[in-house]
């Protein structure tokens, strides 16, 4: 009577196991099982030899290290390509950061809820008490006893910026959660201060409040009109973004005014103003745009846009003004 297990390996499985064994993917027990099968099965032993032969043969085409020239060439080519990519605009990076944080924040309310739920076994403030006790212990003072009524639930999900760690105490229902809170802050300074400028630029994109955007764009625009360094740190870009995307016409108008000094010298600004002329929903802004384009009236591109506007703008006054401008300036040859 054969005492060997209820399970005897069939050859099809053995063939697969042979491959796995050859590549170190079997557990010790599985290897042992396979060896047992191979002692009794000729066909499978041959199969294993064949596979070994394949492995040996494959080594005739060995993996080689890339030589130094290839590495250097590749690296140089990459560096050139990377140099050609303009650095990410501050608002693009900021956008990325927001998205990353958003992804984390989405998890945070769930984690905060976990704290509340997990603690319930020991009373909903059990976790809080434990954390307090530990902190006191570490600080070398006696833990305060907290009357359950008086202690607030520490983690209101809206105050939580992110959760930095969750540790379950072994053999207990208590969980310790460390989190970072959102802290409102204030800063004062002049427009020369780079931090103030940075915050202003961030504010110009603050989706929640048109009032804040209005203030910040107004300040930035004033800077530009005054001729203060408007090149630095993408203030011009911020104004162009506000002109193109802000939903509030007042903000857009401020941005437009801020860009006025640069229409003649910066082709991107000129194009942004042309775009406003073609696409802005507010006729006042479109008409402002025409005024701004005065210094570059003779430009081919500008004339083309003016021709389009002269026939297709919804507003008759704007059509009129465009025609006048076109008539005023002889065609540039």
């Amino acid at each position, binding site marked *: 009577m054969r005492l060997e297990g209820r399970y005897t390996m069939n050859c099809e499985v053995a063939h697969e196991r042979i491959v796995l064994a050859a590549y170190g993917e079997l557990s010790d027990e599985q290897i042992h099982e396979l060896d047992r099968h191979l002692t009794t099965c000729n066909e499978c032993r041959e199969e294993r030899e064949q596979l070994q032969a*394949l492995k040996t*043969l*494959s080594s005739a*085409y060995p993996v080689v290290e890339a030589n130094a020239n290839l590495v250097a060439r590749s690296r140089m080519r*990459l560096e050139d390509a*990377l140099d050609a990519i303009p650095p990410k605009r501050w608002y693009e990076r900021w956008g990325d950061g927001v998205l990353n944080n958003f992804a984390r924040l989405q998890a945070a309310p769930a984690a905060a809820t976990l704290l509340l739920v997990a603690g319930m076994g020991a009373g909903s403030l059990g976790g809080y008490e434990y954390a307090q006790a530990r902190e006191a212990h570490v600080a070398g003072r006696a833990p305060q006893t907290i009357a359950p009524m008086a202690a607030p639930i520490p983690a209101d999900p809206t105050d939580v910026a992110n959760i930095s760690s969750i540790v379950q105490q072994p053999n207990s229902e208590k969980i310790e959660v460390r989190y970072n809170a959102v802290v409102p802050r204030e800063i004062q300074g002049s427009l020369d201060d780079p931090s103030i400028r940075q915050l202003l630029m961030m504010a110009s994109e603050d989706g929640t409040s048109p009032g804040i955007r209005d203030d910040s764009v107004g300040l930035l625009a004033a800077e530009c009109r005054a001729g203060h360094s408007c090149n630095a740190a993408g203030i011009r870009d911020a104004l162009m973004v506000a002109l193109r995307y802000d939903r509030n016409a007042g903000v857009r108008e401020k941005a437009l005014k801020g860009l006025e000094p640069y229409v003649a010298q910066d082709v991107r600004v000129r194009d942004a103003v042309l775009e406003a002329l073609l696409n802005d929903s507010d006729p006042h802004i479109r008409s402002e745009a025409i005024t701004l384009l005065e210094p570059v009236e003779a430009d081919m591109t500008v004339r083309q846009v003016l021709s389009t506007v002269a026939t297709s703008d919804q507003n008759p006054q704007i059509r009129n003004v465009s025609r006048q401008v076109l008539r005023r300036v002889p065609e540039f040859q």
Partner: protein
Amino acid sequence: MDGPDRAQERLQARAPEMELIREAQGGSRAAFDALVRQYEQQVLRLALHLTGSEHDAEDIYQEAFLKAFRYIGNFRFECSFYTWIYRIVTNLCLDQLRRRKTRREDQAVLVDHSGDEIDLLASVSDNRSFSNPDRELDRKVLGERIQAALGKLTPRERMVFELKHYQGLRLRTIGEMLNTTEETAKNTLFRATKKLRTQLAGLR
């Protein structure tokens, strides 16, 4: 289950790289360049062996790291950076393999002086060809035949065999990199070895 200490240890070991990645995500070109230097040798090694061409390997290097640069903001640390980079490289390599037609007419079957087919596998099993330099089975020629046989695999089979046999990765990692399961990677490996043996044993 790992205690918090072990987790902390692993974190420390990975910390320098994580810092680099965060800096690169923040826009630091220097940090990105440092990451490139850490992985470029491996990337080239893989691309070179898969494509057999320095020129193609260079192209893959270029595309892979440009892609990494563009999308590093999306890296959320759910897998290791190594896996993430390799995923990009293997996908590019797969595209490359698919684009190539069967350029070579070479068979994996050799014919000896009397016109009979040589069973490469049998000769290797006998260990004759490798130990005797006078044999017609020159190592360079053998290498070409292996390449030809590899070329007959489907792109995925080729990739799995490459990552398993030549690069020594675990099947589970291979599954992650190819965005599939370990089980599927296993079955692909079985198909690949079967096909290769058929090719090299002189059968068609």
